[in-house]
């Protein structure tokens, strides 16, 4: 029994890693090899695909654009959600429960529903093809999520902590910035992670609201064929690079996430 107990997890991990390996494998092959033969590792090993991505602005600007609007969106969503979540967790006001539910309903429609109105609206006010446009569009989905996550964490902090701080002489902002925010740091980490993930992965709105200047990498990547025909190796290299930021973020927030699962409402 003991001798075979490693088989199941190993099998599981192999299956799990197979698509990623295949992507990595393809990214070091030439397009001819990918289309021509079934090979488990690159026969004709090449860095050419990566070199193209890092030297061609139409490729690398995709990453820059994506990272720009994703960061802006994450910061904006959490910054707006913090006071909102505080209000929901600490005060009772008329319609608070309805408002909280209404916020969440924003996530219940697919992004495609909003593609047309956003496109029209942003074109009209001159925001089309800007990073701000995509960042703002994504807040529609991310603010409710961040409010929901943060409210859970904040409600886990006793109201008496606020009162103790006031009794000690702290002003509201002194308490909020120096005591309260560090207290729910794990929750902020979790909220930022989910905002990042949504914005990084979302394709439809990002593609609809941009043309050239703010075109995200996911839009560039879905361009399967170019004037030079199929460029599968190039796409595989782009895909590999796209995994990296997500992996980085997960690595840094992994402890917070674990804490978040235990404490909050994720």
């Amino acid at each position, binding site marked *: 029994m003991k001798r075979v107990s490693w088989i199941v997890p190993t099998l599981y991990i192999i299956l799990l890693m197979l698509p990623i390996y295949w992507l990595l494998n393809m990214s070091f092959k030439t397009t001819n090899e990918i289309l021509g033969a079934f090979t488990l590792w690159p026969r004709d090993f090449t860095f050419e695909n990566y070199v193209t991505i890092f030297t061609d602005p139409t490729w690398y600007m995709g990453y820059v654009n994506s990272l720009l609007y994703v960061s802006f969106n994450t910061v904006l969503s959490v910054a707006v959600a913090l006071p909102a979540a505080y209000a929901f967790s600490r005060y009772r006001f008329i319609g608070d429960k309805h408002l909280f539910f209404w916020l969440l309903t924003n996530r219940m429609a697919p992004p495609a529903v909003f593609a047309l109105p956003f496109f029209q609206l942003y074109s009209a006010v001159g925001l089309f093809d800007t990073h701000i446009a995509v960042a703002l569009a994504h807040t529609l989905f991310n603010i409710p999520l961040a409010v929901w996550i943060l409210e859970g964490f904040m409600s886990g902090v*006793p109201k*008496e*902590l606020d*009162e*103790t*701080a*006031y*009794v*000690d*002489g*702290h*002003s509201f902002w*002194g308490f909020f910035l120096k*005591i309260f925010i*560090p*207290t729910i*740091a794990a929750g902020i980490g979790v909220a930022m992670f989910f905002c990042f993930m949504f914005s990084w992965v979302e394709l439809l709105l990002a593609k609809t609201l941009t043309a050239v200047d703010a075109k995200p990498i996911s839009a560039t990547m879905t361009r399967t064929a170019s004037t030079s025909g199929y460029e599968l190796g190039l796409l595989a290299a782009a895909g590999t690079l796209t995994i990296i930021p997500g992996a980085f973020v997960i690595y840094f927030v992994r402890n917070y996430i674990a804490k978040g699962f235990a404490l909050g409402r994720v």
Partner: protein
Amino acid sequence: MTLELKSIGKSVGAEVHIHPTDLTLEAGSFNILLGTTLAGKTTLMQLMAGIERPTSGEVWFGGQNVTGVAVQKRNVSMVYQQFINYPNYSVFENIASPLRVARLPAAEIKKRVGDMAELLKLSAMLDRRPSELSGGQQQRTALARALVKDSDLVLLDEPLANLDFKLREELRDELPRLFSDRNCIVVYATTEPTEALLFGGNTATLMEGRVTQFGPTGDLYRQPNDLVSARVFSDPPMNVAPVRKTGSEIVFGGDVRWPAGERFQSLADGEYLFGVRPHHVTPMRKSDAAVPVEGRVLVTELSGSESVVHFEINDIPWVSQSHGIHAFDVGASATLYLDITEAFYFDGEGRRITTAAPQGH
């Protein structure tokens, strides 16, 4: 400095949390708010501190109306039942927090925090985070923070309730010592009558948002104004039963009767309520004046050196608390003795009848 509550009340919507209350607390006094959970102890404290605004009435402090003054501007401190500390600060910074806000020089902060930590046995853990401390140490940290700034008003909201038995007794012994050389007003909320008696000072009994009586703790225990105060200040609960006075006798349940005695001789004939604390109902006859009653035993709780017997007479539940082990079979009939010299009589509205000078407890 004197804290005066002038008919302050607090309602949220249609719900009354605190009925208009008048209370005057003198500087250097130890005051206990005694009441069950939801009696309004915490709300009353929040009104005193200024965390909550009263919906009616005024709060005066040291001869000044402070009703509208923000809690930050008043010199108060508060300790809660939950161990409330700033989780991201070290113990040192937790204690120093009120002094930092007051912008005291660093050297003085260091000295005062050091002294306070010494007093509360926290010197060895000043660098740790509150989460790395035991419950008792966490509450000591909260206490140290409340005491370090020399507030005029210190509010302690059931500070010992979440501690285990040993720590509670230890800290309870320390508390009066911590306040002995201070001239602040201490307000201590508790649900336990025993705790109030141990601390002494003044006690205010609270029931459903109403202060039913306020005065020196011993007096309040011995001479409750009414049935409500007497009930709040009795654990296990006071035994209350209807009695009738006819001529020179008090009659209970038809066949139990005893002489009204000199004190209640002059009382008009009629229906009254009779109240006696559980430890004046005993399985052993203590004096000739004790009146035997027959009851059916419901439960017997034996705890080391003490017996608590729950029984019923004519469907009215009674409790007896006595020293020694007195085991009764459940459902058995038992004879217990009421020490009627220690009994209270209340009129139809629950006011205690005082026809003569009250005797000892």
